[in-house]
């Protein structure tokens, strides 16, 4: 029988640390507040996390391939504004594919710059954050976008509808997570994404077309962003130009919390989902405890750093960094 040595416990803690932390959180909040684990509350948390979560799924691909995407927030504003605008002009059935096509174009631009031209993804997506924000403002003329007939459109089904008693945003989030999870874990494409992020040079020498993989990761990310924009637009049926502002960093926080390394090559869809849920449940739990809304930011800060720190500490076998 295997004996549990100190190191092994450390290893388990490191690998499943995020799950353990999640479990502790849920138990603590459940004990503290009776409402916390009720079906209604859980649904409302997952539902409000769905937009963030859908975006995080796509960013997980980008991060695993060794890149960053800071443009998802402003891209989400873009797709929300575009779909709302086109809804009244060409009808929802055409507006949705048109919006997806336009958002995918933006993703393709980023993918081309980062994948084929091999520019630094942090700076490229920083530039795109600014550029897409400008594009959105130009498109909308700085006005808020509203659907004229809010009652009579079936468009609201994506954000407000429910099927089998489950809200549609949750269905979309779970379905997309399952699909992308399989793509990442069970297909040759998924394995190539890990290979490119883990060691790009080695991947190139073993015949993987690195540029193409990176390009495809950004396409997936922008498709997820378009989906998130669709949910957002459909939920509110009207929107400001800045609806997604700042989301890129929350998304990244969720992905990192899930244990994906910014260096690439590690992370899973399942863990990202856990990361998203942790952020959502912390926010909700702290509110139920009667704490101020903004305390969640401070708590998130502490949790992110602790999570990544413990992960690194377990890998190097020492709590503190060895650098002098």
């Amino acid at each position: 029988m295997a004996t549990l040595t100190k190191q092994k416990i450390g290893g388990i803690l490191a690998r499943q640390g995020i799950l353990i932390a999640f479990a502790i959180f849920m138990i603590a909040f459940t004990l503290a507040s009776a409402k916390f684990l009720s079906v209604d509350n859980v649904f409302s948390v997952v539902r409000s996390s769905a937009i963030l979560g859908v975006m995080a799924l796509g960013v997980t691909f980008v991060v695993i391939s060794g890149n960053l995407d800071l443009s998802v927030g402003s891209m989400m504003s873009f797709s929300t504004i575009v779909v709302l605008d086109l809804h009244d002009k060409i009808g929802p059935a055409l507006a949705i594919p048109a919006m997806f096509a336009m958002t995918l174009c933006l993703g393709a631009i980023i993918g081309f710059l980062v994948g084929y031209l091999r520019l630094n993804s942090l700076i490229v997506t920083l530039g795109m954050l600014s550029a897409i924000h400008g594009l959105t403002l130009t498109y909308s003329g700085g006005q808020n976008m509203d659907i004229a007939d809010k009652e009579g459109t079936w468009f609201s089904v994506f954000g407000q509808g429910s099927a089998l008693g489950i809200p549609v945003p949750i269905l979309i989030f779970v379905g997309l997570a399952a699909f992308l999870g399989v793509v990442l874990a069970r297909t040759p494409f998924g394995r190539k994404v890990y290979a490119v992020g883990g060691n790009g040079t080695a991947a190139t020498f073993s015949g993987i077309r690195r540029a193409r993989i990176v390009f495809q990761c950004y396409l997936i990310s922008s498709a997820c962003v378009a989906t998130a924009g669709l949910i957002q637009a459909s939920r509110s049926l009207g929107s400001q130009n800045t609806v997604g502002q700042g989301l890129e960093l929350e998304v990244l926080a969720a992905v990192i919390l899930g244990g994906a390394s910014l260096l690439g090559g590690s992370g899973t869809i399942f863990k990202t989902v856990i990361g998203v849920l942790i952020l959502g449940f912390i926010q909700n739990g702290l509110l139920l405890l009667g704490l101020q809304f903004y305390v969640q930011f401070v708590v998130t800060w502490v949790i992110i750093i602790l999570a990544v720190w413990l992960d690194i500490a377990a890998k190097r076998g020492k709590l503190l960094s060895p650098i002098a």
Partner: protein
Amino acid sequence: MQPGALSKALKSGAIWGFIVLELIFFSVAGEFLSLSDKAFMNWENMLLLLKQSAPIGIIAMGMTMVMVNGNIDLSVGATFAIAAIVLLDSMTWPIFAGLGDWVIPVAWLLALLVGTALGALNGLIVWKTGVDAFIVTLGSMLGYRGVVFMFNGENPTSHLNWTLVDFAEAEFLGLATASWFLLAVTLVIWFLTKHTVHGRNAYAIGDNRDAAVNAGIRVGPHMMINFAIIGFLAALSAVVFYSESGSVNPNDGQLYELWVITAVVLGGTKITGGAGSVIGTFGGVIAIQLLRKGLGHIGADTSTVNLVIGCILIAVLFLDRQLNVKGKEELKV
């Protein structure tokens, strides 16, 4: 001519060439498009531009140090807001009531101390835990901003002290107070990078960390000092700006980190560390402000500014890589 000298000269001169280009373009375009009949290139306008560059510019100098060092700081906007709140709120504290106008230096000192401490905290975490600076400061960006909101909710914090406003609006030798601060900070940080052991070590660490460790350089303290410097400068920027305006919104300083990083990268600092100059950053700051002002002058709205700056940032990155590409390919094979 040595190989590489041409591309080096091109790179260090590029930002100034770009500024000249902007000046010419906006002057000419302004003649046809501008609604006001004032010339773009007049002296007063340029002085105003320098003053308006100060908040971003002061922080950008610190960001240059941090990025040369191979790190990044995303929390500067939040630090900026916290320092502003400390500055304005501390002037109303009852313990300082007997000080009269002497409360001003006390409030300044407090704000700068808080900023330095927040920066140093980031540095300490990066040093001791070994977590990437991007993640650490991403976290503290959320955390510090949370503290800002916890202080006063969504309400602004205001306090006007007329002596302070007079000081901030004063002009000395034709330059506004904020401009003097920007120039002084630029000079000090330039000296720090070029003529001190700390500066030299910061470059060495950013260029090749393992080599720096093997050469006996203590990597951690240098990183922490740089984070303390950027925290101090973020607070200084807030102090200079809010002395004049006297009111801070909890959202103030948001996206500052993006503007600052854009300015620093435009100025030629490498995101991977080891290369970059304070003078280049100064050019980057001026170039961005010129672009914002110039586009406003010819009647473009803010959306165009965002669009243009984003595209320019990517173009600069592309050009920079094209100029470097020969040397790099040789290294790789």
